[in-house]
């Protein structure tokens, strides 16, 4: 084996051919979009298209799973959009839409697949069957695909309701729960491939499943799945980048916490029974430790970005970049908490159980910022109410 460049050495498994065709595809897609819609795009949208193309090229260049995922999501989304035409009513009558890829059906598939993936991962872990674990990965990929297709199709559906109702589906708790599940799963799959370990899958999928179960209850209990038009305060391009950036943060913090749980379980079992199952099947402490750090570092970076984007948006919508609104303040609390975590680790060199515990506690802090604020505190961010 000869390696030509250090850039690919660490992460790379793709051939240069695959890499360049992928980059070419992304460039082609971006150019096509820009040419087709040159008359309606504003500079912001042009920027988004270019950045998205660069981002996707980057993500996919050495990650074949992502490439396949991207192609399948695109194909299914276009298929659904084509089936719909101009008639939203087809969601009830067309076979494919009704049972597979109308947004609501796609979300149901996503939920079911995530639950199945959780079981598969744990079954693989306890039976020490790498095949079953691979099934878990495949199910997770499928669930993520259905979730993302659902979001894409929902986006289109909102425009079919009425052009003035149309908006990107990141505007209420129902939609962001799906976003959370999808982003967390994708991030996990990235780490799974990079660290070549599937034994943590069940732990991470557990939190996704929890989110999905909450989501189902929420849907059926409150009719929350209906597409609502945007209130004036949300009609801003900042929303489209602020919310996804936030969820990269939430997703990675959730992953870090679940790895923390696995870490603590392994360490607990090693104390009482070093020959026990968990002590042997879970990755090395140092791998989990490293993963926790990687996840939190990534989350911290995106959370910083998201909070700053939020401040920019607030400056435009509320008249001040910082108002000590509860949601804002909790974002700061989350941020300070992980800043402290990173300092502890980087400069005081802490690791092991205390940091794992702290990562788990961090999830509760994050959870409160994500849900608790909307449930228990009132403020300017009141649109995400339960």
């Amino acid at each position, binding site marked *: 084996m000869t390696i030509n460049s*250090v850039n690919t050495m660490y992460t790379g498994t793709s051939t240069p051919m695959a890499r360049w065709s992928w980059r070419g595809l992304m460039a082609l897609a971006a150019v096509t979009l820009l040419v087709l819609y040159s008359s309606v795009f504003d500079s912001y949208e042009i920027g988004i298209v270019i950045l998205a193309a660069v981002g996707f090229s980057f993500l996919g260049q050495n990650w074949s799973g992502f490439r396949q995922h991207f192609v399948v999501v695109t194909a299914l989304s276009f298929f659904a959009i084509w089936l719909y035409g101009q008639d939203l009513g087809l969601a009830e009558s067309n076979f494919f839409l009704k049972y597979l890829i109308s947004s609501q059906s796609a979300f149901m598939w996503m939920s079911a697949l995530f639950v199945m993936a959780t079981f598969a991962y744990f079954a693989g872990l306890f039976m020490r069957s790498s095949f079953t674990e691979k099934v878990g990965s495949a199910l997770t990929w499928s669930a993520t695909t259905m979730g993302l297709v659902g979001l894409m199709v929902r986006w289109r559906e909102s425009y079919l309701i009425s052009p003035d109702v149309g908006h990107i589906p990141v505007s209420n708790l129902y939609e962001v729960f799906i976003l959370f599940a999808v982003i967390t799963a994708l991030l996990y799959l990235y780490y799974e491939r990079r660290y070549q370990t599937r034994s943590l899958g069940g732990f991470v999928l557990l939190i996704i499943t929890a989110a999905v179960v909450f989501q189902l209850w929420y849907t059926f209990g409150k009719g929350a799945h209906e597409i609502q038009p945007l209130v004036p305060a949300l009609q801003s391009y900042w929303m489209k980048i602020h919310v996804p950036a936030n969820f990269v943060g939430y997703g990675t913090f959730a992953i870090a916490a679940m790895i923390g749980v696995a870490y603590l379980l392994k360490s607990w079992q090693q104390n009482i029974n070093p020959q026990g199952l968990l002590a042997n099947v879970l990755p090395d402490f140092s791998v989990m430790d490293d993963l926790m750090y990687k996840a939190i570092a990534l989350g911290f970076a995106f959370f910083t970005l998201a909070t700053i984007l939020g401040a920019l948006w607030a400056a435009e919508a509320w008249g001040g970049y910082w108002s000590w609104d509860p949601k804002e303040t909790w974002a700061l609390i989350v941020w300070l908490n992980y800043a*402290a975590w990173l300092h502890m680790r980087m400069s005081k060199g802490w690791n092991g159980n205390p940091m794992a515990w702290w990562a788990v506690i961090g999830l509760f802090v994050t959870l409160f910022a994500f849900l608790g604020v909307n449930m228990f505190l009132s403020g300017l961010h009141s649109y995400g109410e339960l």
Partner: protein
Amino acid sequence: MSDDSNPNTRHHTLGQRLFQFLGSMDLAITLLLALAIASIIGTVLQQNQPYADYLIKFGPFWFDIFESAGLYDVYGASWFLAILTLLVVSTSVCLIRNTPSMIKDMRNLRTHVQSKSLRAMHHQKQWSVDADAGNSATILEATLSNLGFRAKQTVKSDEILVSAMRGGMNRLGYILTHLAIIIICIGGLIDSNPALKLAVWTEKVKVHDFATKTISPKSYLAAGTKAFRASMIIAEGRSSGTALIAMKGGALFQRLPFSIEVKDFRMEHYKTGQPKSYETDLVIRDDSSEPLETTISVNHPLFYKGYTIYQSSFEDGGSVLTLNIWPLNSSAGSPPVEFETNVFKNSDISWGEQNLGLEVLSFRLFNINPDPTDDDPNRQRNFGPSFDYKLRKDTGEALEYTNYMLPIKRNGREYYLSGVRSSVAEPFGYLYLPVDIDGGLTHFSHFLQRLHDENIVNDIAHTMMTETLAEINNQDKKLEQSLQETLTMLVTMFVEGGFASVGEFIETTLPEAEKETLGPAYLSMLREMLSRIYLGGTLYKYGTDDPEENAKIQQAELLFFQDAVDAVSSLSQYGSPLFLELSDYEHVEASGLQVTHSPGQPIVYLGCAFLIIGVFLLFYLPQRRFWAIVKANNSGTDVLLAGMSNRNPREIDLFFEQVAEQLETATGNSETR
């Protein structure tokens, strides 16, 4: 301290120790967490509420303790500012202490390492090559350069050291991140305008208390360069050059260097009824330039000469309302009386002996509410304009009303709807006045007048008494009188208290034995009276020649009669001698604006940019160093390679392997060949 003169001992001066402490990681982490906990308090306890609310919530004991801890305005409390200041100081000290070595580290290739220290490194490898030392070193340097390293050869006595580094900017990441914290805090401090707080504290500026009538000139702030965040409410067609800064206990008046006129405020709705946009047409005038006409809306503020003007709310700007006043408790005159008033206006209405104060609270053009007649409880419908008012009696008591302009449909019939309640905490109870065949209240009002007219009631009671007694052939004068009295009394009782008081009368005054028989008899007598009073008025007035059509109209009139009786029955709870029908309006709105001046904002944004760049540099540009020592041996050259990263060691595991392999291939390992 005796060892001042000797800085090399482990004992330091107090100043040095303070410096050490301020820049210490322990302090930094403590401060980060302290700030987080303080922020939690600030969100869990609602901030800046009226003090009375806190007093009720916590009781006098805890109220005082919490107050002295500044918990009602955590983010403005001195201890909170102290933590923030300490954080800034600590970060600055940390930065001052570490920057020089970081900058050195960014550039320095470390050309002084010994082979001993390379051997001690976790990542290291050795091999031998055929080429001589000079060539090997050059190949190593070139290969490392190709891999993106900055590399350099240092020739020592019997060996050559190749030092290489990648990701030196990682150190810049540290500097930017921590500098950003300081910059952001400074920008934020500028925008929180501490000078104003000081001026209020030293009473140079006086917070205006809305309970006092006159405004002190000390409550006005001149237009200047200081930061502020203020609000204005301007009615359509009006203009203003002064904004209100809300302060503890009142407000301050901020003069602006321009005036803002509101031309028009608009609110648009989606088809489903939810609000879609709020926008205002503005004209900005100042001395120096042409008036600027523009439109702002939520998320689209106006930036004007360093000020920002936002759409933040809206309210009524004193809409003109034309009312028809219908009496509900008299037999007098031909109603209604027309009356004109404005939202927010208080007027006196004399009604008979009663003086009533009418306080118009608000006007709403749209009422988008769930439709109670729809099967789907989520379906919204527009119920049209409405207005809210209070009627205040001489005694000071007041009831609050909300009246809809357009009739509401229920079970296929139409009603004027008026809600009443005695306090804001209660839900409204509704009065349904039936709409008559002419589409108005005339017939209902006519019926009501007849009910209050003693002569009419007496006449009808007399006729009814005579007819009833004739039926049973009774000649008893006493019975005649008692029946006549009972009939009029039932009507009076009904008019004053509705079916409820008639029922109560039956319950409380009739002997137990006769309740069963007399009770229903009384009620049917009352019904008969009411219908006779009504019949003499308008019922079945609208007959036609077509018997089928006739039957329909009669059915409608019968229903109207029942509705009218129900309405009269509930009037006693309505608590008002008047019904105010909204007949016309001229909608005037006021736009709620927020005006801010934030000189610190660009500073904060600069800090944010530093923070983002810094954080990504810190995390994603690890600093990696490699060293190779080449030394001639008997047959060729020995290579000793070592590498390290400033991140965690694992991060470089694979990387080291792969770089080492490439270097080995490039130099040509003589042993593996």
